[in-house]
């Protein structure tokens, strides 16, 4: 309980610092810390799957994207920073936001307890999916359509990033050239961590059927490993015009969609699985989806093509 209160206070304090920090970069760093602390909160709420996702995507991936954005925006945002609101609007905003917080805080203690839940139904139908992690069952079976749409959204985000590339670099290498010193600590750490990271990523993906984990979390780790290797200059990103790369990016959503369509014939509905083969089908979906998500996230972080094809 003391730990819970301390953690909650810390999360709120870091969030307040994210808002109050003068420097954009400091705010971004504080936001990453906030993401990691929030992951701890999710562990305390007995939601390890959410914690994994929050740490990997909320803290790590979003943090990387935001740090990149803050360094690019440094010059552009300076004029906007002078348009701070005056004292009156500032106080009005503070009052309004306090009221919203107090209103929400007053609801929390009077939430019905225990309140109705679908968890029992989720658990009751678990056997039909062949999985033993109910969260994965929700993501891959009961609400598979949401997961399908998420994979498509990621792809659209990557298209949006790529479309920022100047014409002369189209189809070129993503991101700027990394001039890493081959003798540096970074290179050594990358050589040491990459094999372990790949192993952990595959493990987190594979364990998802029985324990907290799954394709999004595993794919994020794989993407992070690739980014680390790229930053250390160990690997060079493939030009975005490569056929195999594009196939890899669409393979996940495409396989997902095709198995979903096959559900019409085999089980009578879109994204329905015949009971005897549910786990096999989910696995067939998950492998290419993991690869696609890993590639998409890595390329999202790498940014639009900034060098011509070599």
């Amino acid at each position: 309980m003391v730990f819970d209160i301390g953690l909650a206070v810390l999360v709120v304090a870091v969030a307040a610092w994210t808002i109050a920090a003068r420097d954009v970069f400091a705010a971004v760093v504080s936001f990453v810390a906030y993401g990691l602390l929030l992951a701890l909160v999710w562990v305390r709420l007995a939601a390890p799957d959410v914690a994994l996702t929050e740490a990997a995507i909320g803290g790590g991936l979003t943090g990387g994207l935001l740090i990149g954005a803050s360094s690019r925006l440094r010059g552009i945002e300076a004029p906007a920073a002078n348009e701070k609101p005056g004292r009156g609007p500032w106080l009005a905003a503070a009052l309004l936001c306090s009221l919203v917080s107090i209103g929400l805080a007053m609801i929390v203690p009077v939430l019905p307890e225990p309140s109705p839940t679908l968890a029992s139904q989720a658990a009751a139908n678990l056997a039909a999916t062949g999985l033993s992690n109910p969260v994965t069952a929700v993501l891959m079976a009961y609400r598979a359509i949401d997961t399908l749409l998420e994979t498509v959204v990621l792809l659209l985000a990557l298209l949006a990033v790529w479309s920022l590339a100047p014409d002369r670099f189209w189809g070129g290498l993503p991101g700027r050239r990394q001039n890493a010193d081959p003798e540096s600590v970074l290179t050594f750490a990358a050589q040491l961590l990459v094999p372990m990271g790949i192993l952990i990523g595959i493990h987190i993906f594979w364990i998802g059927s029985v324990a907290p984990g799954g394709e999004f979390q595993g794919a994020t780790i794989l993407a992070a490993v690739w980014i680390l290797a790229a930053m250390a200059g160990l690997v060079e990103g493939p030009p975005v015009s490569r056929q195999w790369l594009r196939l890899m990016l669409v393979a996940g959503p495409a396989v997902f969609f095709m198995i979903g369509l096959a559900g019409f014939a085999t089980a009578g509905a879109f994204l329905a699985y015949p009971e005897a083969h549910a786990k096999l089908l989910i696995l067939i979906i998950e492998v290419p989806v993991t690869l696609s998500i890993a590639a998409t996230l890595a390329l999202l972080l790498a940014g639009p093509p900034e060098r011509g094809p070599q």
Partner: protein
Amino acid sequence: MSGATVYGLCGAALVGFGLFGLIVHPEPLRKILAFNLIGGGVFLLFGVVARKGAARESAYGRGSARQRRRPERQLVRPLRFEPEEQRPHGGLVQRAHCRWTLAAGARASGS
């Protein structure tokens, strides 16, 4: 006051700070950060609501500390928890809750 309630209050505070940042910061990136704070807070509130419903039957067979002290109950009826039907005071929060308990916040993967 339980741990879930503490984090519920924490979520409420996060929403307030995020909203404040969204209003007073002129820079787009700061606004995005603030918006993400709101998202974290709202999501935390959903998680707390789900926790209050699902605390009795832990998805992975381990529950809260209070639950672990009563093993006989877990062993006899591990996954059989019927919510009382037709709660008269169930409004928006409860309906939202029904959706969110099942996922137990699993939708975080979309964020």
